[in-house]
């Protein structure tokens, strides 16, 4: 046979062999092609769960999910000759249309992408019918937060797209770019409960990304788990009333149920409508709210710090009695010459001193606490006494975060030895340097929440339960704090202080808060303010026996504590206990808010 024919046959066999070996290499030996094939066709689709609803203590709906609509564009199918029509239906400009169209086209011509985001349902209803005629546009429903009432923004917080920074800090790696997340308030605190769990489904797609079917018959798919509903301790009706009262004022109002620590009302004023911070206008509204000079985003009950003022005298009395430096019925004669005072000269016991808010009495009492005679050196003696006193304050929840279930709580400030050492030098200060503390002025700072909690401590005669908003998560209240936190004062000392507080309202500086048939025990504060008119403060509880509500109110620059704050607090108490208001003149007085200052006038003009 022809030798060249043999060469040709060998050549054919060789070719078949080479191709077979090469095929073996890519088909059997090398795994990368199998993975690449899967990556080609498998497309993960995330199914978002419904976020949990939020209710008040009586199961009134506060926050829900509202449908909005994303308008999707499929650039390949859009008829550009329609653009006039499109613009008219969607009421957008040519420029907007071009920008959206080009962006979508740049993304992918044959895949739908978002053209208009989060169209509210009322606007959508208008365009819905006409959309049928527009080729290349489709609708994708999604939800944003809906609010039944324009209230409680400082409690609820808001939900928005996760920021790059948050994404980087997310160690759970749950979130993905573009996800919504609770940014503040309850939405952030209970994000894990509210958000639910994303579902995933895997689909096979063709080269253009068009879905061709389920991958692996759906065996890898998971359904979204809806978020859990949360019931708050807030009393909607009381909250509404409190917000109404605080309108046009700068300040805080916190009402707590003493026996449980449940927060009944929580107002930071000025505030904003929570529905501003959602949907497509979020960014625009956020920058307006953020740049407001009155700082509506500042959560005053948690974050504002004031000297406690005269409210603090309740703590001073209890600490002095507990330290056996003051007998419950001991009378001290006060000449009124140690410190400025509005109380008349005369003999005072605890009850009377609280009633008339005697500064000189508490000056003397505080001196007894600080200088207990542990050491002959008055400087060293003061240090020992101060440390004892300070520890009592910490027990009262001052200078620490109470642990409320809301982000960004402020601890307030209780000065320490180091504070004064820094100012005066070690062993270079004693009682005479710190006597302002005796009447709640000076370096000490508290938050309105801490003062409301003080009201609860007094109402409970010696303990508190961490103030909280959570009533239950889907009926489960295991996350709710229940522990009684004792403040370390014998229950026996409380009645003397409480009797004094009752008289504050019935015959002292809190007279405007007086309600004949509801025994309110309270204490006013007129907090000196270096920047302007005094802040008006009131802390108290009611009724005296079996207390149902403890309240603290601060109204900035509103002068005497008995006026603005006391009146407001008494209205909230009456509303909660009785359900209606009998003293309409007090209500009018508060609503009119004419407490006489310039700053408030500027609020109204806004």
């Amino acid at each position, binding site marked *: 046979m022809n030798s060249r024919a043999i060469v040709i*046959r060998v050549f054919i*066999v060789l070719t078949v062999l080479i191709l*077979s070996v090469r095929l073996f290499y890519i*088909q059997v030996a*090398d795994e990368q092609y199998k993975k690449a*094939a899967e990556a080609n*066709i498998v497309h993960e689709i995330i199914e978002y769960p419904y976020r949990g609803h939020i209710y008040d203590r009586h199961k009134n709906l506060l926050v829900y999910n509202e449908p909005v609509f994303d308008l999707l564009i499929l650039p390949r199918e859009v008829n550009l000759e329609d653009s006039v029509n499109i613009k008219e239906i969607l009421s957008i400009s040519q420029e907007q249309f071009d920008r959206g169209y080009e962006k979508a086209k740049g993304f992918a011509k044959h895949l739908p992408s978002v053209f208009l985001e989060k169209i509210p349902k009322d606007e959508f209803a208008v365009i819905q019918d006409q959309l049928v005629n527009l080729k290349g546009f489709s609708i994708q429903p999604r939800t944003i937060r809906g609010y039944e009432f324009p209230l409680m923004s400082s409690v609820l917080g808001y939900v928005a797209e996760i920021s790059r920074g948050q994404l980087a800090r997310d160690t759970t790696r749950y979130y993905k770019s573009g996800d919504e997340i609770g940014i503040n308030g309850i939405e952030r605190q209970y994000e894990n409960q509210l958000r639910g769990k994303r579902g995933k489904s895997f689909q096979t*797609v*063709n080269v*253009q990304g068009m879905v061709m079917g389920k991958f692996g018959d759906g065996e890898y798919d998971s359904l979204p788990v809806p978020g859990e509903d949360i019931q708050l301790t807030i009393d909607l009706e009381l909250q509404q009333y409190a917000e109404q009262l605080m309108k046009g004022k700068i300040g805080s109002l916190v009402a707590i149920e003493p026996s449980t620590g449940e927060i009944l009302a929580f107002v930071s004023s000025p505030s904003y409508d929570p529905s501003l911070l959602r949907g497509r206008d979020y960014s625009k509204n956020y920058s307006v709210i953020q740049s407001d000079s009155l700082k509506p985003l500042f959560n005053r009950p948690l974050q504002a710090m004031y000297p406690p003022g005269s409210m603090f005298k309740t703590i001073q009395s209890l600490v002095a009695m507990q330290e056996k430096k003051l007998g419950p019925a001991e009378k001290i004669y006060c000449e009124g010459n140690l410190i400025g005072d509005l109380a008349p000269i005369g003999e005072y016991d605890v009850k009377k001193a609280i009633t008339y808010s005697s500064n000189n009495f508490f000056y003397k009492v505080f001196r007894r606490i600080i200088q207990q005679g542990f050491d002959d050196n008055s400087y060293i003696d003061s240090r020992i006494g101060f440390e004892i006193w300070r520890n009592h304050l910490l027990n009262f929840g001052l200078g620490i975060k109470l642990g409320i279930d809301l982000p960004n709580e402020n601890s307030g400030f209780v000065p320490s030895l180091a504070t004064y050492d820094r100012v005066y030098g070690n062993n270079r200060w004693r009682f005479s340097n710190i006597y302002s503390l005796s009447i709640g002025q000076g370096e000490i700072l508290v938050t309105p929440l801490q003062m409301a909690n003080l009201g609860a401590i007094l109402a409970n005669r010696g303990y508190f339960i961490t103030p909280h908003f959570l009533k239950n998560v889907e009926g489960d209240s295991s996350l709710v704090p229940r522990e009684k936190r004792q403040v370390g004062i014998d229950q026996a000392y409380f009645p003397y202080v409480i009797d004094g507080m009752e008289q504050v309202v019935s015959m002292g500086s809190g007279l405007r808060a007086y309600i004949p048939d509801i025994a309110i025990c309270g204490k006013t504060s007129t907090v000196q303010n270096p920047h302007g008119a005094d802040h008006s403060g009131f802390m108290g509880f009611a009724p005296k026996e079996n207390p149902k509500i403890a309240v603290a109110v601060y109204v900035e620059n509103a002068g005497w504590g008995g006026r603005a704050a006391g009146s407001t607090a008494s209205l909230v108490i009456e509303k909660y206990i009785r359900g209606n208001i009998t003293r309409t003149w007090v209500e009018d007085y508060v609503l009119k808010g004419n407490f006489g200052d310039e700053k408030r006038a500027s609020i109204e003009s806004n």
Partner: protein
Amino acid sequence: MRNAQASNQIDWLTVMLYFILVFAGWLTIYAADYEPEAGSTIFSFTQSSGKQLVWIFTSIILIVFIFVIDYRFYESLAYVFYAIAFLFLIFVLFFGREVAGSTSWFEIGSLRIQPSEFAKISTALGLAKYFGAGHRKTSSHRDLLIAGLLFMIPLGLIVVQGDAGTAMVYLSFLLVLYREGLPPLLVVSGFGMILIFLLTLLVNQWILIIGIIVLTLVLGGIFGRTVRRALVIGVAAVVTISVVVSVDFILTDVLKPHQQKRVLLLVNPNADPLGVGWNTTQSKIAIGSGGFAGKGYLNGTQTKFDFVPEQTTDFVFCTIGEEHGWLGSVLLLVIYGFLLIRISVIAERQKSDFVRVYAYSVLSILFFHFAINISMTIGLFPVIGIPLPFISYGGSSLWTFTILLFILLKLDSHRMEILHRW
């Protein structure tokens, strides 16, 4: 008596191999386009498989025709066929329809005919006729020149049409010349030169230059035993590299960008539509994901979901690789190898030079298509866009390969009579 026996000597083995391949192709075309939701069957005319069935039936009619016609007809009219093909190749340049940058189609109604496909047959016949005239010697420069021109003319015309891939197929006739005595060095260098010229139009020049250097070293190692041979190989390498560089220089530096684009588009409209190596990558992914035993018939995903371009035509092998794995692929290769060797056996048993040369032409064309097509799907050769004979979808290609093969079988069945004629 002897004649009657001879006329019944149809090579049934080849016929069987042919039908196995065509049937496998038909099933594969259905799988490559398969849409489970569409509910269309392998017979429905909206599918490529349904249309392919039409091409298969018409091919059978063609086979009958070929066997009915007198066997002498093919040799007598070989030059006439060649002339007609030549004219068609010219006409198509002027009256052809431009499809994706190449003008290689006639359109008559809904029918599209590609003369460059059928010209393979007439070139094979023409070349066979030339050698069949007797006393041709590949050592004679004149004979060699004429034989070369016979396939270089259609090759040139097809390049001008803008279908470098099909043109390259005509290089396979060099294998025929090798069988007829052309020195191997001449075959290799001739094949190499023209191949490289065409590849320059398709592939990055640096890849080519590196390839040439590697090839030179390999050839030098094998053949460069004498100084003279080594010199020849060296010179050949330098010459080829200069061809590459000069073609590339003309393309990239002399021509303006829009002219470049036009030239490149003309030469190879589909080489790389989505970026570097998309076709090859996806094709390798499809085949590679098949594994040892494959995903099973109709269970492939890569070709079905269009990741592989041209999945029923040039890349039809991907579906076989994906759905039938290494086993299926190698089975196909073996069947093909078997067919090719069978054709060589048929060729060698011919007493007539005409039939033998024609047989080797058929073998060369099929072998070239087979080797290059599968190589390009598994990344051993650049994507040049030629079909896999008998398997790929398409009427022109199936008809061409059917006619090529069955003319041979017809001639073979009369091999004893042909002997008598001479």
